[in-house]
């Protein structure tokens, strides 16, 4: 397909790195890595081989099953080692980050005297389980956020109430990209309220930022494979030593009483393969993506002052850029880019006729009137400068093409 809706795709051919994964993905430009990333070659290879060969049930009593069980244990230990977590802590494989968050929030057994803090600007898999407890606990409190949408201990009351039993935070906010200094936050929180269970959703930072669980300030953590080059369908919940949960899934007790389900060994092996590469190149990828982010933001700013960045990119993860183009619905921008084979995300599902506000955007401090203008451009470690250049030149076109529709 060389032509699509009158748009000549051939002209983008030369700007796209032919050695990259984009070769397989035809000529599209993918800038929605925060939603899901393509598999990295190592994860793909591991998955292919393991899917074919490792079909045994890791809970089976025969030697083939036992062997896979042993390998699963080894992977757990390697994850824990890389995260500087204690050997006796738990690394429970789940089907997704949403499952991990649900299992934790619902499994802690909070009761009518307990309260919890959650950021209303966080991912729905944290906010909704918290609200599902509303009738069961004393109160679900809104965690105050700073300008980039991350919590800060200085915004919490000096004396934290004894009934607060759980605090739910994310290292990186998936919409604003706001980056939490988790080390600082965790130690300050534990100084103020050592009894609190601090749960970290690290989905947007896992395999992208160093995570150190050795201080003991973090009590549990959710991670996922598919946002860092691993396969969809596998995530994990890390639990500090000594903590227990009421399981979400009852059955064969495969994950030592915490979760029952046949161990998905090929997914787990592929997950680790992706993590291992990501961990090895952490610093290099961070520097590369930061420089791509800078190029992107500066070039977009050069296109027009109309393109605003509501959350200061300097204070955000370089992997996520939140941008606002006031006066034109983000859906139209998304589809115009899509027409030119460019994928980004629009944070609003609300079209011009459906005047709904976006609760996440509201919690992040944006007035309702601009919710429908917010775009999210997200990078992955496989993103290249050539892709960024191509993106900029296409965005310039789109910017001028859509000028006549901008309502001022």
């Amino acid at each position: 397909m060389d032509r699509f809706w009158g748009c000549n795709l051939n002209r983008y051919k030369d700007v796209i790195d032919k050695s990259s994964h984009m070769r397989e993905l035809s000529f599209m430009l993918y800038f929605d890595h925060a939603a899901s990333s393509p598999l990295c070659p190592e994860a793909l290879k591991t998955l292919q081989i393991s899917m074919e060969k490792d079909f045994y049930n890791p809970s089976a009593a025969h030697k083939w099953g036992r062997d896979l069980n042993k390998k699963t244990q080894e992977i757990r230990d390697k994850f824990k080692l890389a995260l500087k977590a204690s050997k006796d802590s738990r690394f429970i494989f789940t089907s997704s980050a949403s499952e991990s968050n649900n299992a934790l929030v619902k499994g802690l057994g909070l009761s009518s005297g307990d309260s919890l803090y959650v950021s209303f600007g966080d991912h729905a898999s944290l906010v909704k389980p918290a609200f599902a407890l509303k009738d069961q606990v004393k109160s679900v409190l809104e965690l105050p956020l700073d300008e980039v949408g991350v919590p800060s201990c200085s915004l919490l009351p000096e004396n934290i109430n004894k009934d607060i039993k759980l605090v739910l935070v994310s290292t990186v906010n998936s919409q604003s990209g706001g980056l939490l200094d988790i080390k600082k936050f965790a130690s300050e929180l534990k100084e103020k309220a050592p009894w609190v269970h601090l749960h970290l959703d690290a989905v947007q930072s896992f395999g992208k930022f160093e995570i150190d669980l050795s201080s003991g300030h973090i009590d549990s953590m959710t991670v996922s494979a598919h946002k860092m080059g691993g396969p969809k369908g596998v995530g994990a919940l890390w639990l500090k030593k000594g903590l227990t949960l009421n399981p979400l899934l009852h059955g064969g007790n495969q994950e030592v009483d915490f979760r029952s389900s046949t161990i998905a060994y090929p997914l787990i092996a592929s997950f680790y393969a992706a993590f291992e590469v990501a961990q090895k190149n952490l610093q290099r990828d961070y520097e590369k993506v930061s420089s791509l982010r800078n190029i992107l933001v500066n070039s977009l700013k050069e296109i027009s002052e109309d393109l605003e960045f509501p959350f200061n990119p300097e204070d955000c993860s370089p992997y996520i850029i939140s941008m606002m183009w006031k006066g034109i619905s983000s859906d139209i921008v998304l589809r115009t880019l899509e027409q030119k084979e460019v994928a980004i995300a629009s944070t609003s599902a609300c079209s011009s006729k459906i005047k709904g506000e976006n609760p996440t955007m509201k919690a992040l401090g944006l007035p309702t009137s601009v919710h429908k203008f917010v775009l999210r451009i997200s990078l992955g470690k496989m993103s290249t400068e050539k892709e960024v250049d191509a993106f900029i030149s296409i965005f310039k076109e789109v910017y001028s093409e859509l000028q006549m529709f901008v309502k001022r």
Partner: protein
Amino acid sequence: MAKNSILINVDELWLKGGNRPRLMKVLKDHVKDVFKAYNTSSKFENSNQRFLVTINDELTEEVMSALKKVPGIYSIIPAALMEKDNELSAIWPAVDREVESWGEDFTTFKVEGHRTDKQFPKNSMEIERLVGAYVLKKYDGKLKVDVHRPEHRLDIKILRDEIAVSSRKELAIGGLPWGTSGHLITMLSGGFDSPVASYLMSKRGCKQSFIFFYAYPFVGDEVKDKIFELTKVLGQYQAFSKLYIVPFGEVQKKVSGICEEKYRTILFRKMMVETSNLLADRVRAQAILTGDALGQVSSQTIGNISLIDDASKRPIFRPLMGMNKRDIIKLSEEIGTHDISTIPHDDACSLFAPKNPVIKPDKKYWHRFEEENDLTPILTEALDQVEVYQVNVRGELTKA
């Protein structure tokens, strides 16, 4: 032995004189299609102004509702065909069934007897008296005869070989059989008006090809889904129809770039009508159908309508011209498109809408624009990329 049958009375065909046999055949084929689509086997017997259809199974409400949407049918009467004997004793089970279908509450009725077979030894009056006496005796206290304004009419028809017993009569949409008064290109949008216009012209016996101008990327898939849903409903008033989705966003963008802003909306209308004419050339349709109502929006003023008429080489039918919005919405409720039309969606028209659309167009500007810009090539290019779907009589839509 009782047989299930349906009497189908035709509507305006008595007007048609010499054309009548042809129209009857078209109508019969349409009705056959309905039975076939609902897996009901049927046997037809023509009589003068009606069909007598014998079916193997009970008539379901689903089939009844489908039959009511067949243009050209005046009424549908489900009847039990009973053995013919001079004393009428074989019809009592069918009479019981009808009377019991009227419910538990006290009610009034009237018996209406008819003889197609004039050789039958009892005349209509005698039949009525006999059946009335049977019912009153058996359902003593529950029923009363009211010859002037009865709640129920129990109809006894003496046919050549059987006696038909019925008490339910459903009115269908009436009008003329499908396709007997031409083929239209129906310009469909997601609003209330065009589906109602389509329905009205279905009643007038028009075969329709639906056309939708899809303003992607300015609107998204949800609008297309809405058009699919509307077509599924409107297709049930047709024997068979097609939906043509024309990609139009690029055309609208190009034209917006070269015309005066206040002419945008009316120019889009013109381009849509021209494209509909191009489609009409391809599918051999004879007229264009729109949901315009006079003065409803700026493109529906007399001045603008006359410009649009000039742009069309075929007549444009506007059955809603004299209707108020309220009446249109009421009709949309009756035909089943209302709840689809109310689903909110992005509207490309409002996106492109000029601040002050032209009400009294300047013909000089218009003609100069037409002379300087031949849009036929880009409209043809858009039509070449059309996506085609087909809808059967059950309203099932598939990619063509």
